């Protein structure tokens, strides 16, 4: 293969999708960051002629895209799989209105939950909402399918879902460059019978949905993205998306029906293919989506009886499932200390969770973000985490269930971006319905977990230009919160005192824990002090170690070693700061009672 720089690019799936959207002439795009979908919007925003934005949540993002498509412009909404749950409300009714300009919902599933709280298979949404769904196998196809998706959307008058997974989004491959297509300018056009979904109109559109899906089913039979790749042997595979690669890798000569459009299915093509092989195996990740429909068609096949329905697949799993005798011996893994992710050195969340970890009998209702890592030892200061924004609502529910006995014991913790995503309505509910649960907003001035996207409180747009910054204190007061306190979580002792007081209070209070993420570029650049350990003063109390900072490590000592170092015989070890890793937050110095941690001059 010759990599020709004039015509080819080396892109991740997410970069390729952004390029595909641009080539397809997308004019408006909106989304909320979520691994593995995040980089699509960041890349798309940089293209000429595209308006792209971060929305506070996926429902907002999809509605923005729907509105844009009602003007005849091509529009895109991006989200991770759980984001489509949030956007499901507009999704199901946009299926009825249909579109004017093309509308694509780019949905990124995360089999294996590399960075997610569940691994739902969102192909099921296509079935449930009656929408066509395309599924590419690699970055090159992902780009081309974006262009196809817009053509289909306008041809069939429907939103189209493009479903990718982590192994498209964060896989890099060779992609062919194209050019942006010219489209007519958007206009205002009133078409209430199509766009106003009240029962009388909706019943008519309901029929249009069925008619369109019928047409889509016919179209699927000749769509180039659905293709039979002839081969030799009696065993044939039906597959789609990333698993197609694993089939080709393991059985390069076998006949394959590759489905680029997974809903609706090309039934005639499937029957023809099934009749041409003796044994039919469906290879798909997560749910038996294709398999179930094949079985409903009366076609016998193997599927989830041999292929796992959990976690992501790879060529090894497919090989083992289909041809177990071909597997050779592997080296066994060795038992090694695990290396889970951890809050960074200097992370402001640590100071807050340290405070929470010191409060006995307090239930911490948590949320989705870097700070979910507050669950891990040694801080172990999170007791529940379900979905975006649920910290506040769950805490309220607990307060109502527990009544008097839960007073002073329930606290919700969520990040600034998560609060704006779906915490605000929960807080409104808690105030309105007289909750006593406290709410902590971890305001680190960014959406950190997904790679520092701006948000409505950061004062900047996706392109870094100035934007109005939401005043969280004022908003909370406007919602009716009487007690709003702001703390700097690096001031560990002050924070601990405030937590104690506010959580104990019988009234709902909001504590805003405010300090910027240490990984923000301006924080990385800022000159910071460094702390070091005076080993002579260390008594081995391990209080600093209990903060779980990656820059602090514990060295165990035998009684002889302790005495050789001039410590008491009983001292079990000492803690030490790795200065190269220290981010200068000073939290450890604040908890040390023995003057063993000292600030070096700024450098």
């Amino acid at each position, binding site marked *: 293969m010759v990599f020709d720089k004039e015509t080819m690019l080396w892109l991740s799936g997410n970069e390729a999708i952004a390029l595909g959207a641009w080539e397809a002439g997308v004019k408006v795009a909106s989304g909320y960051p979520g691994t593995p979908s995040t980089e699509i919007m960041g890349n798309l925003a940089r293209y000429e002629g595209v308006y792209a934005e971060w929305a506070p949540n996926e429902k907002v993002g999809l509605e923005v895209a729907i509105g844009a498509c009602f003007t005849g412009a091509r529009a895109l909404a991006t989200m991770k799989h759980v984001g489509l749950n949030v956007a499901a409300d507009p999704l199901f009714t946009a299926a009825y209105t249909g579109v004017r300009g093309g509308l694509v919902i780019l949905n990124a599933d995360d089999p294996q939950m590399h*960075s997610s709280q569940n691994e739902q298979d969102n192909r099921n949404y296509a079935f449930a909402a009656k929408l066509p769904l395309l599924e590419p196998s690699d970055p090159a196809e992902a780009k081309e399918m974006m262009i196809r998706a817009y053509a289909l959307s306008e041809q069939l008058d429907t939103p189209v879902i493009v479903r990718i997974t*982590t*192994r498209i989004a964060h*896989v890099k491959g060779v992609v062919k460059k194209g050019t942006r297509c010219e489209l007519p300018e958007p206009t205002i056009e009133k078409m209430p019978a199509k766009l106003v979904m009240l029962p009388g109109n909706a019943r008519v559109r309901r029929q249009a949905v069925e008619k369109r899906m019928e047409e889509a089913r016919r179209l699927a039979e000749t769509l180039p993205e659905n293709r039979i790749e002839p081969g030799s042997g009696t065993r044939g595979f039906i597959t789609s998306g990333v698993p197609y690669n694993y089939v080709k890798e393991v059985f390069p000569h076998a006949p394959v029906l590759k489905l680029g459009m997974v809903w609706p299915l090309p039934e005639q093509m499937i029957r023809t293919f099934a009749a041409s092989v003796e044994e039919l195996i469906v290879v798909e990740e997560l749910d038996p989506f294709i398999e179930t429909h094949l079985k409903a068609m009366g076609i016998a096949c193997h599927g989830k009886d041999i292929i796992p329905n959990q976690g992501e697949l790879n060529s090894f799993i497919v090989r083992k499932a289909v041809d177990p005798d071909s597997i050779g011996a592997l080296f066994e893994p060795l038992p090694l200390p695990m290396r889970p992710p*951890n809050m960074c050195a200097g992370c402001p969340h640590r100071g807050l969770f340290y405070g929470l970890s010191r409060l006995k009998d307090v239930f911490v209702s948590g949320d989705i973000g870097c700070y979910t890592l507050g669950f891990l030892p040694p801080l172990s200061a999170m007791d529940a985490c379900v979905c975006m924004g649920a910290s506040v609502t769950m805490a309220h529910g607990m307060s109502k269930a527990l009544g008097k006995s839960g007073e002073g014991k329930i606290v919700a913790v969520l990040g600034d971006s998560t609060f704006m995503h779906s915490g605000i309505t929960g807080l409104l509910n808690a105030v309105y319905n007289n909750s006593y649960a406290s709410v902590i907003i971890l305001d680190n001035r960014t959406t950190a977990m997904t790679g520092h996207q701006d948000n409505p409180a950061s004062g900047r747009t996706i392109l870094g230009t100035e934007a109005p910054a939401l005043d969280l204190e004022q908003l909370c007061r406007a919602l009716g919160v009487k007690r709003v306190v702001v703390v700097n979580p690096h001031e560990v002792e002050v924070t601990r005192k405030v937590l104690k007081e506010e959580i104990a209070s019988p009234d709902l209070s909001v504590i805003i824990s405010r300090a910027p993420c240490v990984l923000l570029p301006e924080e990385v650049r800022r000159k910071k002090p460094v702390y070091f350990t005076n080993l002579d003063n260390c008594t081995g109390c391990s209080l600093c170690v209990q903060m779980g900072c990656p820059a602090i*490590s514990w060295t165990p000592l035998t009684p002889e070693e302790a005495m050789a170092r001039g410590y008491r015989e009983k001292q079990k070890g000492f803690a030490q700061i790795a200065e190269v890793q220290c981010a200068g937050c000073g939290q450890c110095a604040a908890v040390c009672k023995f003057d063993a941690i000292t600030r070096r001059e700024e450098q």
Partner: protein
Amino acid sequence: MKQSGNILFSGVGGQGILLASELTAHAQLAAGFDVKKSEVHGMAQRGGSVEAHLRYGEKIYSPLIEPGTADILVAFEILEAVRYLPYLHKDSAVVVNTQKILPPSVALGKAIYPENILDELTARQIKVVAIDAFAVAESVGELRTANVAMVGAMSNFLAVSPEVFLQVIENTVKEQFREVNKKAFAAGRAAVYA
């Protein structure tokens, strides 16, 4: 020239694995191969174990390396070399940076960082090349080039000529860091047989 191969990069979030795998991918593309590379972002990046899979050949389908088929493992940390043992085969080469980064359980004193753990690899007849990438980087005057020094060390096991790598650095690295990275690559390459 070898017609296909699998290179696994492993280490700890923040060690520069993505840049190292990126340079290698560009070198393989320049050598005329099809290439796919797989990474994981998001929560996995916060100081946890990270990996990048790179596969090259005439036509690559799967973006993931199968267990037992990694020809080269480039490990940026000792434990992260041994963790990927099931991916290796008896003819694999492991290029490992001798840096130790303590996992949280070790830093908390709840677990021990195993001593001489690389012996587990050599005991299985796997070729292990241990280099002190920080010392190499220091010798060229920029500690942050340790990852490129690792690429240099690894390049000894690839048929792609070092000139191709140097050209890739020329094309992809910002001007002010180009020369020092070229030096780090050359020093890393030389470190293997030093």
